[in-house]
């Protein structure tokens, strides 16, 4: 097990190096940030001074070498706009995004599994057909449009829920969170649902497919032949089997929840990392973009590792050997 984790960490480090190279050189193709800092009345000398101040006068390989050296010391560069360390800015915004993503994940499980289970157990009922039709909508409608519609209906027309910001926050272990205040919760509801919709649909379909398949397995019939109650058969025998793919997929999707939150955060003006990224892209704030993408890759790597470990707990047939990933 420890050998397995060690190997995985080494592979992860390689992935992150590759990512850093691609991002660092790729970002140089999307415009020169110097032009964001100069005004029309500056002369050539002023412009060159700004370029030097940002370190953009050096050749790109030299810039990259400098970036790698600092990155190894935990410094992913300083934001052009804020003049603060990029990593610090991202970490400062991270709790808001994580809170949104976790809430969305929770919603995906809380709505997706029971609805999928129902649709799988009673495939011919009208309710099940409605659930499946709803999940197709959840898959197909674009996130930003659903977000705008949610705001239209619940914030503008009905006026039940606020449409922007995090609302009141309280500190939990020194980290500001919204979900512990009523106002914060109200603010959280719409963006989290918006973000969760796609995952709810996914979990519904996975759970339904798993249920349809498992219900005809001999072990379910054997469990019935033992005289077990329906509750135990569905709650233990069935659910434990269908949770395996659901956990795997959800774990992998959690990374994309964080990445997708860019859209939701923009629509709902949620002050998280995604919103920071969009602003950084608009202002060509290269250090923030690079630091953000490296953070996301890091999160993906960590999440995948956790999923692998969880998977081995759920499915006894999987033992994490040291044959690598």
């Amino acid at each position, binding site marked *: 097990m420890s050998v397995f984790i060690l190997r995985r960490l080494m592979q992860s480090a390689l992935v992150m190096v590759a990512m850093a190279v691609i991002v660092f050189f790729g970002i140089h193709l999307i415009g020169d940030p110097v032009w964001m800092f100069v005004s029309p009345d500056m002369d050539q000398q002023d412009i060159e001074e700004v370029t030097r101040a940002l370190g953009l006068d050096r050749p790109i390989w030299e810039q990259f070498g400098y970036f790698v050296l600092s990155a190894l010391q935990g410094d992913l560069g300083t934001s052009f706009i804020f003049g603060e360390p990029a990593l610090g800015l991202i970490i400062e915004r991270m709790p808001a995004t994580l809170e949104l993503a976790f809430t969305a994940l929770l919603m995906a499980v809380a709505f997706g599994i029971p609805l999928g289970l129902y649709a799988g157990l009673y495939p011919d009922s009208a309710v099940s057909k409605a659930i499946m039709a709803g999940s197709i909508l959840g898959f197909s409608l674009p996130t930003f449009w659903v977000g705008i519609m949610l705001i239209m209906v619940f914030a503008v027309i009905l006026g039940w829920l606020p449409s922007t910001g995090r609302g009141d926050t309280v500190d939990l272990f020194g980290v500001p969170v919204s979900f512990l205040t009523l106002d914060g919760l109200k603010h959280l509801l719409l963006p989290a649902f918006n973000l969760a919709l796609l995952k709810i649909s996914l979990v519904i379909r996975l759970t339904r497919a798993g249920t349809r398949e498992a219900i005809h*397995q*001999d*072990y379910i*019939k*054997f*469990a*019935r*032949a*033992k*005289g*077990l*109650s329906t509750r*135990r058969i569905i709650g*233990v*025998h069935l659910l*434990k*089997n269908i949770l*395996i793919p659901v956990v795997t997929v959800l774990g992998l999707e959690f990374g994309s929840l964080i990445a997708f939150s860019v859209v939701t955060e923009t629509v709902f003006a949620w002050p998280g990392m995604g919103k920071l990224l969009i602003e950084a892209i608009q202002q060509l704030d290269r250090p923030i973009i690079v630091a953000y993408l490296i953070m996301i890759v890091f999160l993906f790597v960590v999440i995948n590792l956790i999923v692998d470990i969880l998977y081995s707990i*759920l*499915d*006894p*047939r999987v033992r994490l050997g040291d044959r690598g990933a």
Partner: protein
Amino acid sequence: MNDAPTLQVTDLKTHFFTKAGVAKAVDGVTLSVNRGEVLGLVGESGSGKTVTGFSILGLVDQPGRIVSGSIRLNGEELVGKPEADLRKIRGRKVAMIFQDPMMTLNPVLRVDTQMIEAIRAHGDVSEEAARERSREALVRVGIPSPDERLQSYPHQFSGGMRQRVAIAIALLNEPDLIVADEPTTALDVTIQAQILYEVQKLCAETGLAMIWITHDLAVVGGLADRLAVMYAGRVVEEGPVDQVLDAPLHPYTRGLIGSVPSHNRRGARLSQIPGMTPSLLHLPEGCSFAARCPRADDACRVMPPLEGFGPSRAARCHHPFTAENDGQEIDLTFNE
């Protein structure tokens, strides 16, 4: 105890109401099993053996249901009982063993979990007491180091061991009847022999009644006390196993026996029953075997009743191979 059979099934009809029509999987099955007796239920695939087994446990799934007939367990009528009552009977009075041991145990639950839950579903038993009983059941079916095995997952067992675990689970609540649906078909021959031996011993020792569903006449010949042959949802012949195998009354039984490979006819072409099992959706009028039967005539357009031949035998045929009309030993009537 009493003379009443452990299980008495009378004119059972289990039909499946599919979109294509009504499939009469079981269409008038009558059979009985006594205490300590093994009844072999044989027939080809689709003859309704398994559906009969599931009907006895009340486990027929939609779109199937028991249309009519009676299933009496120790005199108690099971047909029409509410699901909650049936649940209490399943696993306690009637247990079932399935064909494929690789599929019957839940792959993600430990063996002890699966055994203890079977005990605790039928009574207020403490966890420790249930574990002890599970341990004893494993010992009884010949599983070495039971304590260690209880902690294992099904994938850590071989096929034969898994089937033993399944049998141990069936035995946990000391049922009156076990329905075994081709339990040794998926196992290799040596394991099969061991399991057959243990099952025979159990029935003799405990008075357990058993229905052994199979299409393997060789297995059933050595194991069963009586034999019931099914064809297209009906029992076509029934009687003591030796008599049925040595002198079959029904042409179908004779065809089945003739299609078993044997040493005596080495090199000879194996006899086949011509034609195919009729579709359960469109069963012909009269005897359902008539279309494949060399003895069929106009009389067979009417369904023959299950008629008694002597004290212990019965067959559903207008032209049975009885001593009067058929002096010869088994010949290969079906060979062209």
